[in-house]
């Protein structure tokens, strides 16, 4: 029901005849490309973003630059895993059907593969190879998390003329609460939203 009630974007010239601008063949193309992207997205959905951009914005022209960047920003502003940005990309291209196709595509292959691999690893968990696999990857995992912390931290430090005390204080309070208390993160996020809305963030 929702497709035509919620226009995903302003229709460009001549696109009105096709709902949200895509034919059935295009939708299969969309689904197919997301199926492929699913298996390429090692390191998370966000790591497939450059390839998504190349195909849907540059090659197909189904989405403009702003639409693509907005998809990522919206998904990061909303709660939930980053993969929700894939649903927004699909939605901006072809409405709710597009969102559904994009999600099924990005999730199906990786889900089946993950379950098979994790079951296999669990049944062979006593073997030296598997134990070495999980133990050997752990330092890299922690390293990647530290690198992600740095990436999240950088926007607050870059381009600031004075010391950004607001964000620094928010970050410090958050780290302290996480290490010393058992407070649910939502209270910290609400605190951050409130402090930011009042102009101190």
């Amino acid at each position, binding site marked *: 029901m929702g497709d035509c009630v919620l226009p995903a974007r302003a229709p460009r010239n001549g696109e009105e005849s096709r709902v949200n601008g895509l034919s059935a063949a295009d939708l299969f193309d969309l689904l197919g490309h997301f199926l492929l992207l699913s298996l390429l997205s090692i390191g998370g959905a966000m790591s497939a973003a450059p390839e998504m951009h190349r195909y849907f914005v540059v090659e197909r022209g189904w989405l403009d630059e702003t639409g693509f960047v907005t998809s990522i920003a919206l998904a990061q502003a909303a709660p939930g895993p980053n993969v929700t940005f894939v649903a927004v990309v699909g939605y901006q291209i072809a409405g709710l059907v597009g969102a559904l196709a994009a999600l099924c595509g990005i999730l199906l292959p990786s889900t089946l593969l993950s379950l098979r691999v994790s079951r296999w690893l*669990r049944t062979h968990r006593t073997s030296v190879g598997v134990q070495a696999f999980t133990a050997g990857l752990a*330092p890299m995992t922690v*390293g*990647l998390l530290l690198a992600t912390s740095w990436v999240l931290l950088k926007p607050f430090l870059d381009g600031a003329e004075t010391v950004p005390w607001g964000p620094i204080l928010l970050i410090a309070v958050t780290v302290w609460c996480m290490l010393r208390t058992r407070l649910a993160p939502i209270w910290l996020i609400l605190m951050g939203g409130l402090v930011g809305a009042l102009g101190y963030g």
Partner: protein
Amino acid sequence: MNDSAPEHEPTSRPQSLVELFVTFTVLALQGFGGVLAVAQRELVDRKRWLRREAFLELYSVAQVLPGPNVVNLALMLGDRFFGWPGALAALAGMLTAPIAIVLTLAASYQQFADLPMVAGALRGMGAVAAGLMIAMAIKLIAALRRNPLGRGVTLLLVGVTVALVAVWHVPLVWVVLFVGGTGWGIAFCQLARQETGKNRE
């Protein structure tokens, strides 16, 4: 279950598929700017379904497999407790509410995107998200203590990963192959040596 690795035993477990679904919905809805830190908080610190070490192992596997990392993590954990239905319940919990929210935002964001209060709130929430990630990285460093690689090698691999990703922006595939491969190789040699040592006794 085997008793060679007692630290893998969870101290508690979900009682039903509904509890699994609700838990993942609750944690996904707290995940602004990424769900991973919240997942660690809820699953390890609060629900106690996993110990830190087991969380790190599960996530290490989840991240080298294609697909969204935290979604893979949810699948594997759900599967571990209830098999296929558990995997689906965790997946549905992780995605249903966030997708509904993000699509609602996508359909209506133009009306409020320019408000300075909204921009400020998003910035404050971003600072908290950075704090959550930093705190989790600190906690998981502690989980590396018992790593069979030994402290020196472990810290070296963490450092190399941070340098490759944050400083030199090396694509993830190469980091996984190089650092993950090295870690696996060294861990394999060490564990194999321990194994032969045990057999000789």
